[in-house]
């Protein structure tokens, strides 16, 4: 079984929320239900302020807490993609999955059943990007096989360090 997932680059995300809307438009979701959600956090006091943005959807966990929490066995793990999906016909809208999920990913739909990221199940993996990934102006979201994404994140970090003036300090294992 392959396990697919999302890579997210917080250095690139500008918090524009295009991913949220692309997800809604592609999946014909209503505008108030967000399968993907962007959070913008700031810290510090003027003028020493830092901020970070995070775009989060279902992580399609290997050991999905939502699946374990569901009393109706409505949540399953897809064999081919490792995607975590909700069977709408079994769901009774008890929201236990939302309470169990550490990322708050499952969302109550307008029909009283839980909905969540389907990893754009219609879009064949490898042939086309997920809707959120395709729209992102900064290419901050990348989907793919977990092994590839882990490799990618290592490469991204290495590339950043290679251009960083302070990289030698870090690469020289100097204590921070």
């Amino acid at each position: 079984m392959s396990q697919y997932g999302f890579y997210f680059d917080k250095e690139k995300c500008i918090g524009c929320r295009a991913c949220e809307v692309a997800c809604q438009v592609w999946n014909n979701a209503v505008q108030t239900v967000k399968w993907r959600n962007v959070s913008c956090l700031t810290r510090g006091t003027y003028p020493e302020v830092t901020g970070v943005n995070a775009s989060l959807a279902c992580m399609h966990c290997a050991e999905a807490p939502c699946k374990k929490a569901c009393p109706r066995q409505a949540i399953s793990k897809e064999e081919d993609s490792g995607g975590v999906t909700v069977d709408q016909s079994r769901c009774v809208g008890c929201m236990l999955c939302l309470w169990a999920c550490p990322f708050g990913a499952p969302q109550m739909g307008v029909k009283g059943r839980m909905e969540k990221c389907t990893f754009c199940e219609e879009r064949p993996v490898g042939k086309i990007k997920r809707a959120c990934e395709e729209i992102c102006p900064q290419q901050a979201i990348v989907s793919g096989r977990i092994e590839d994404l882990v490799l990618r994140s290592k490469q991204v970090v290495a590339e950043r360090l290679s251009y960083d003036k302070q990289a030698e300090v870090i690469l020289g294992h100097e204590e921070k």
Partner: protein
Amino acid sequence: MTRDVINEIRGTKTVPGVCMICPWHCPTENFVKNGRVEYVRGNEYAVNATSRCVKGISSIHSSRDSDRLLYPMKRNSQGVHERISWDDALTQIAARLKANKDAFGPESLVYLWHLDSNETFTHKLFGELYGTPNLSGHGAACDQDRRLAALETFAHPLPVKDYANSRFVMLWGADPFGPNEALHENRELLESMKKGCRLVVVDPNRSRTAEKAHLWLPIKPGTDGALALAMAYHIIETKSYDQAFCDEWVHGFSEFAEHVLSNEYTPKWAETITGISRETIIAVADEFALTKPALMDGLKGLVNYTTGLDALRTVFALNVITGNIDGPGNLILKELAPLDMPVDIPEEAITATEQLPLGSAMGYPLAPDMPTQLLPEAVLEGNPYPVKSLFFHICNPAQSDPNTRLFEKMMAAVDLSVTIDIYMSETAQLSEFVLPEASTYERAEVRESLWAGPQVVFAQPAIEPLGESKPLYEIMKGLAEKMGYGEYFQWNSWEDWARKQTAFLPVTYEELKEKGVWEGELRYHKFKTDGGLATPSGKFEIYSNLFEEMGYSPLPGFSEEHRIKPDAEYPFQLINCKMQYHCGTHTQNNPYLMSIVSENWVELNTNDARRLGIADGDRVEVSSPQASATISAKVSEAVQPGVARVPHGHGFGRRFGTLARGKGTHINPLFETRMNPVSGGISFNECTVNIRKI
């Protein structure tokens, strides 16, 4: 191409389009099935690739919005808009235009628009055939100072950015990662930063762009010119400018250097004005001068003050004296594609304009766009000549210009007012005739994009126009027939004029139609190979003889003569901004965007808010000497103390939309009529306010 994958999954057909939400006009792909737009994304063949910003992807709603203008309307004697037929509307407008031309001359017609390339049809009809010199964009409310500074320095109105190759970028009062700007530019800037490019942002507010910057300089509002001059002083004093480039390609370098040194625009001088320490100014100036390639650019945050023009002239001069211009990683003097006119008017039919454009006639001969703040005087007092007919196309000065009351008075007094729009905008509500335009999903458009090289976007109708709405070219054709100019607007389908317009491009019509974009070669340092610049001297002009002849300062200085600064009665500087999730009237009835944020706010620094007993979300009254408004407070660490920051373009008692109705606060009545004395650009931020909790 992956568009085929989508078409296979959804059974759709791809129709290339263009986004009309903001002025950057990114190329798009629309996916259509059974007369409905099912999905939209960026054009895979273009530099922005499949990406869209949040407003772009959300704009799919405007292809379905039943709150759009669906038929022509005319205001009756009770002031209520009633439906009329296209034939009646165009017949009546044409007759009134003829009467006004006969009695007051063609210059009595003023037509304002907002960056729509189909306006070439308007130019043919109203400019060449009818003969008015008063066709203008709404730039006075936008980038007027930048455009004039660019025309003066580079003889180019809209320099763009080649971030992909930059090593150092400095942005002044510009927030490309926030409200908008070209998507490919944003992506390239972040990619470059990953490779070590440094970003410095000058802004009183910690904007989205400042959030990503290596260095944020929270400058005192309106003092950017002083900072730029101090950087120039240090660069000249340490001789870190590009001497060889200045000798060969810069007009007036020695005068500029002498001016900067003799006026003692030192970092020490600038420190007290700008609130940026002299050490920082020196460090940034050194880094800018010594890192190549570099670019610096400014936008609305500078233009919004009476000091904006000189600030931008200095910013452009800094690029020039360090040799950072039109090369890889620099500001690029964008080359245009060889597009033809969609229709031609034979010379004998063209009406020679006798009167000067309003701007020139009213003392602003260098204004790139009409200083729209002068319009009320022209309409209400007939000065310098009578203005009797006003057209507004996809622009909404009732919402975007200051001094709303004066605008309303003007609209009530003018003889003929016509608004062409896709929504019942605030300006449409004040107009006698309202003509429904087809949205970008329902019409064709051949336009130049804002990519650094030549790039043509060929947008095609994806669906039928909603209701009775019509594309602008069909409206102009219909009006031309009623005005007796029908012979010059002959086509069976938009493809007839689109073929003519694109005939000189080195691509077949069929390929262009299929892809929706054509990109030429991005050439650098064109002035070196193409025989210099189009400026009078053929060089980059940091000393302007033209300005001198017109009685303006040939060199950029720093004067706070026209500045409005906070005092005891009005202790806050009101600065306006755009919201990341909205762009003017056209996003206000959008369910995707309204679910993200539905109202604007006044942003205050935490310390200021605490002192005034204001908590986040409290309703407050914001009062200027001109007017007051009620709005929610947003308490934040991101904004400079003493500054009140409000996103504009919201509110005004909207009647047009189910979602827009009653939402937001219209802040523009608080702004007085203030302009840059040379460019006529609107100085929105020359406004001080008092704030109290209610």
